[in-house]
C-alpha cells in the first residue's frame, strides 16, 4: 500500500497542496511564538516595536492561510451543526459543573464522586455503591 495522507491524495515524494499550506501555517505559528517571546524579552523599545510589527504580519498571514484552507475545505474543524452541538454540549457540562459545585456541600455526593473516580467511571454502579457505603462507614468510624 502506498503512503496516503489523511485527507488529500499524496503522490510519492511529493507534498500535496494541503500539506504545503499546513506546513507554512505551522511555520507561521512557531515563528509567532518566537516573536511573542522576543517582544516580552526585548530591552530596546525600537527592537520591540520591530518584533511587534513582524508578529502582526505573522498573525495576518496565519489568518490568510487559514481562511484560504477553510474556503477550499482543507481544514476541517467540523461543520456548523457540529459546532452547535459542541456548544450545547459545553452548556450541558457547564450545568453539570454547577451541579457538582452544589453537590460539593453535601457529604454523600462528594463521596460517591470519589468512589466513582476510584472505580474508574460510573459504569459499575453497584461496585461504586458498595464502595461508597464502605468509605462512608470508614468515615464514620
Amino acid at each position, binding site marked *: 500500500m502506498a503512503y496516503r495522507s489523511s485527507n488529500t491524495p499524496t503522490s510519492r515524494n511529493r507534498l500535496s*497542496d494541503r500539506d504545503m499550506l499546513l506546513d507554512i501555517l505551522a511555520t507561521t505559528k*512557531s*515563528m509567532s511564538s518566537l516573536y511573542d517571546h522576543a517582544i516580552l524579552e*526585548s*530591552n530596546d523599545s525600537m527592537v520591540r516595536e520591530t*518584533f511587534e510589527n*513582524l508578529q502582526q504580519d505573522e498573525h495576518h498571514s496565519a489568518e490568510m492561510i487559514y481562511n484560504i484552507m477553510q474556503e477550499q475545505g482543507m481544514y476541517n474543524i467540523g461543520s456548523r451543526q457540529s459546532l452547535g452541538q459542541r456548544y450545547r454540549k459545553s452548556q450541558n457540562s457547564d450545568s453539570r459543573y454547577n451541579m457538582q459545585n452544589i453537590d460539593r456541600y453535601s457529604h454523600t455526593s462528594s463521596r460517591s464522586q470519589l468512589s466513582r473516580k476510584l472505580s474508574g467511571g460510573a459504569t459499575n454502579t453497584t461496585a461504586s455503591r458498595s464502595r461508597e457505603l464502605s468509605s462512608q462507614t470508614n468515615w464514620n468510624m
Partner: protein
Amino acid sequence: MPYQNNLTSKERSYLEDALQMENLCMTKCSVYANQCQMPEFKSLFSDHAKAKRQHANEIKRILGQTNSQMS
C-alpha cells in the same frame, strides 16, 4: 539613527533565530510556489515568500547596523 544602542545578547539571539526562520520559510515558500498544483496557491506562496524576504531584510538591517557600530 533608530538603533543607537547595542543589542543585548538576548535580543541578538532572538534576531538571529528569527532571521533563520524567515529565511527558511522564504525558501520553503518559493519551493512550494513551484510545486503546488493550484494556481491560486502559487501566487499565495510567492507573495508569502516576498513578505518573508522583507522580514529577513528588516532583521538583517537591525543586526547589521549594530554590527557595524560594534566593529
